[in-house]
């Protein structure tokens, strides 16, 4: 079993000379999940996107390690899954087609009944043939979790885990978070107090915030 870890080293981000946060450092690994908290606009989502290497940090850098060997940022996408309310799946495809696309691109081979179990777990089984465009926002969010769980990526990033979810959805996601906390390196952003239970280390951006 390879040990994966992520090192954030003094990351700071300024946007056109307006400082968002400074010197964020932590080391995330399997079993040491990180929660990023802070008031709205303190840059939680920006920090998450920097960790994903989707946004360049102004200072400091993000390094991924597999058995203490740095992973080149060109191929880091293979080990990452990201769940957030502000991106969409392919709405003209059905749930199965979206899942199939993700599986093929990550060259993973997963049997159909395992997929059906996962869909069942996230209570999407009887909608799996419908186009994602007709899904409610809660169902779309659950489908993103379902894809992340099927791929079993080593790094899982989540922005506002329980957004657009009803109580039943929250329960499913809480079980999911508890389960993956021990299997993959979890980093998530939230400001709901009851979600902090899944983190071993909390990074509070409001303290580091300057403005």
């Amino acid at each position, binding site marked *: 079993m390879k040990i994966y870890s992520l090192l954030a080293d003094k990351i700071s981000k300024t946007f056109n000379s307006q400082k968002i946060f400074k010197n964020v450092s932590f080391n995330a690994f399997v079993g040491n999940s990180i929660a990023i908290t802070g008031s709205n606009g303190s840059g939680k989502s920006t920090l998450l*996107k920097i960790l*994903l*290497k*989707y*946004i*360049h940090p102004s200072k400091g850098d993000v390094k991924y390690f597999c058995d203490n060997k740095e992973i080149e940022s*060109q*191929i880091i*996408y293979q080990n*990452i*899954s*990201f769940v*957030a309310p*502000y*991106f*969409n*799946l*392919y*709405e*003209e*495809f059905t749930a199965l*087609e979206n899942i199939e*696309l*993700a599986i*093929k*691109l*990550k060259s993973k081979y997963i049997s159909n009944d395992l997929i059906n179990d996962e869909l069942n777990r996230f209570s999407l089984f009887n909608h799996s043939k419908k186009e994602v465009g007709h899904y409610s926002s809660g169902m779309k969010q659950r489908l993103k979790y379902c894809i992340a769980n099927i791929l079993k990526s080593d790094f899982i990033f989540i922005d506002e885990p329980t957004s657009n979810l009803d109580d039943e959805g929250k329960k499913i996601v809480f079980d999911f978070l508890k389960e993956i906390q021990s299997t993959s390196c979890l980093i998530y952003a939230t400001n709901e107090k009851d979600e902090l239970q899944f983190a071993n280390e909390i990074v509070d951006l409001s303290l580091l915030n300057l403005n």
Partner: protein
Amino acid sequence: MSYSNIIFLKDVKSEFRTRVSFNTQLLFTITTLSIILFAVGNESISIPTTISFYWIVSIFAAMSGLSRVFVKEEERGTFLFLFQLASSQSVFIGKLLFNAIFTILVNFFILILFSLFIDTFSANLFFILVMILGSIGIASVSTIVAAIISKVNSSTTLYTVLSFPILIPLLMTLIQASQLSIEGAFFSEMRGHFSFMIGYNISLILISLYLITYLWSE
């Protein structure tokens, strides 16, 4: 390499489902061609003019259809989903394949329309070869500029302003080569044009593969 085929097939499937840009391009060619036919009336036009009409229709159809290939991902918010699934190069090659085949199909459609409606126009093998090389070139320029545009979130007019200067070398050679091919030139006369177009396409694709990695993240 197979990842880009998956991306290509995904784009083809989503194009079949929505059929948005395919219809706009076909309608575009029909309207532009009908305007030309009204203007020409029934007197026969010389070969250079038919060639210039052909490439005007083809370029502007490409300009209107191909610029959306990356912007669509940004607008519909699916970019972050794609970002976590594939590398910038495989997505670029996938989109490039889609654009190239898409342009070739549209150009064949224009070819048929032109041979039906304009009698002086008779496409031969060399012309089709020129057209295919030209479509690959147009597609490669459009794909990399579409990637730039998708990051700048501004109107598609910027797309035309950015891609036109880069297309000019290809356009000049295309017009000369297609003129020669229609007039029935031998291969030896057109070898210079073919080698230029092949060289131009290869260097553009290689440069774009290097540049796309810098366009991938914010």
